C-alpha cells in the first residue's frame, strides 16, 4: 500500500512536469517544434516510464500465492503475468500515441502534422517499455528483500540514471555515443541496428526471468 502511494506520487509529480512541458511545447508555432518536444527524452523518462511502471505494479499485485498454486506451475504463472504486462504495455502506448496524434490536429492543419515521424518511433518505445517491464519483474523476484520491495521504483530509476547520468556524462566528455547504447539509450539512436539490439536485450531478460522463476522461494 505504501509502495503504491509512492509510485502514484511519482507518477503525479512527473505527470505535472510532463503536462507543463507539453503546454510549453504547444505554444510552439510550428508542428515541427511540437514533434521535437514530444519526442524529447524527458517526456519518456518522467512520464511514460513511471506511468507504465505503475500499471506493471498493479498487475504484480495480482500474483498472490493462492493464484499461483492454482495455475500450478511457477514458470507458467510467470509467463502468464508477463503476457499480461506486455499486452498492457501495447495498450498503454497505443493510448499515449493516439493522444500524440490527436493533440496537434487541434492546433495545426492535419497535413502539417508529422504523423510519420511520430509513428516511426513506436516500435522503439514499445521495446524499451517491454524491457522495463521485464526488469521490474526481475527485481520483484530478487532474493534481496529491499530490492524486491522497491522493484518498481528501481525500474524507474535505471533509465533515469542511464539517460540523464551516464549518457549525458559520456556526451559531455566527448565520447558521444551515436551508434551504441546500453539499455534505454538505444531508443534515441538513429539507424536500424537499434532493433536487433533491443530484441537481444529483451530476449536476455526473458531467459533470465525463466531461469530464476523456477527456483524462486515464495516467502
Amino acid at each position, binding site marked *: *500500500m505504501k509502495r503504491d502511494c509512492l509510485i502514484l506520487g511519482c507518477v503525479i509529480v512527473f505527470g505535472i512536469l510532463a503536462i507543463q512541458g507539453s503546454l510549453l511545447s504547444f505554444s510552439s508555432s510550428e508542428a515541427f517544434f511540437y514533434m521535437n518536444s514530444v519526442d524529447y527524452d524527458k517526456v519518456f523518462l518522467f512520464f511514460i516510464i513511471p506511468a507504465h511502471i505503475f500499471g506493471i505494479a498493479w498487475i504484480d*499485485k*495480482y500474483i*498472490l*500465492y*493462492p*493464484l499461483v*498454486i*492454482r*495455475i*500450478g*506451475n*511457477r*514458470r507458467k504463472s510467470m509467463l502468464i503475468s508477463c503476457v499480461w504486462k506486455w499486452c498492457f504495455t501495447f495498450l498503454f502506448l497505443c493510448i499515449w500515441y493516439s493522444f500524440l496524434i490527436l493533440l496537434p490536429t487541434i492546433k495545426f492543419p492535419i497535413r502539417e502534422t508529422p504523423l510519420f515521424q511520430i509513428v516511426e518511433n513506436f516500435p522503439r518505445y514499445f521495446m524499451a517499455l517491454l524491457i522495463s517491464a521485464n526488469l521490474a519483474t526481475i527485481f520483484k523476484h530478487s*532474493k534481496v528483500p529491499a530490492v524486491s520491495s522497491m522493484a518498481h521504483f528501481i525500474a524507474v530509476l535505471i533509465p533515469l540514471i542511464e539517460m540523464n547520468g551516464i549518457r549525458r556524462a559520456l556526451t559531455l566528455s566527448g565520447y558521444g555515443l551515436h551508434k551504441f547504447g546500453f539499455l534505454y539509450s538505444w531508443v534515441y539512436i538513429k539507424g536500424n541496428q537499434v532493433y536487433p539490439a533491443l530484441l537481444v536485450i529483451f530476449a536476455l531478460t526473458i531467459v533470465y526471468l525463466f531461469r530464476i522463476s*523456477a*527456483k524462486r*522461494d*515464495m*516467502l
Partner: protein
Amino acid sequence: MKIKVEHLTKKIRGTMVLEDINLEFSSGHIYGIVGKNGSGKTMLLRAIAGLIQPTDGKVLIDDQELNHRLTFPPDMGMIIEKPEFLNHLTGLENLKLLADIKHVVSVDEIRSYMEQFDLDPNSKKTMRKYSLGMKQKIAIIQAIMEKQQLLILDEPFNALDEATVEMLYEIFRGFRDEGRLLILTSHHAEDIEQLCDNVCFMENGKVKR
C-alpha cells in the same frame, strides 16, 4: 495421497530454518504440527506446498518429487500465515477470481460457502474493510471450495469466533472421513486434541517426536 518428506533441510541466507526433517503423511488423517513461535512450522508447510525449494533433501507427493516440473502438489488447498487477497475487491470477487482458474466450483457454490460462514455474498464491502476474522473466513473458503484432496492449513483457527471454530472442527472431521489429507498448525492445545490423530513437535527447525 501419500506425502514423504526426506532429509528436508532449508537454509535462508545462511540461517538454518529447517534441519533434516523426515516425515510421512497419508490420506484419511489429520496431522498437527506444534511448536513455539519461530520453530519452523510455517516453513515446513511452505516446503510441503512447494512454495520454497529445499536446500537439501526432498518432498515426494505419491512418489513424485517436487521440482521444477511438478512445482506444487496437485489438488492442494492452502492457507499460509496471513491471508493474501486483493484489497480493492469484495470477498466474493476475490473468490471468483481464484475459481476462474480451474472452473471446478460455480458462483452459486461460492455464495453458499460464504453464507455457511456467515458472510454476506452480496455485500459491497471490499476486503480492505473486512475484519481479521472475516478475512480468515475468506481464506478458509478459498482453501476448501474446490474440494481439494490435500489441505495445508497454517493456523486456520486464528481470529475466528468459537461458533465458527466448532463448525470448522466438524467440517475438517468430515474431510478426514472422506479420505482427504489435512496438515495443520495451531497454538491451541484444544484444536490439536480435538482434531489431530498424529502430532509432531517442532523446535529450532527440527522435529522432536
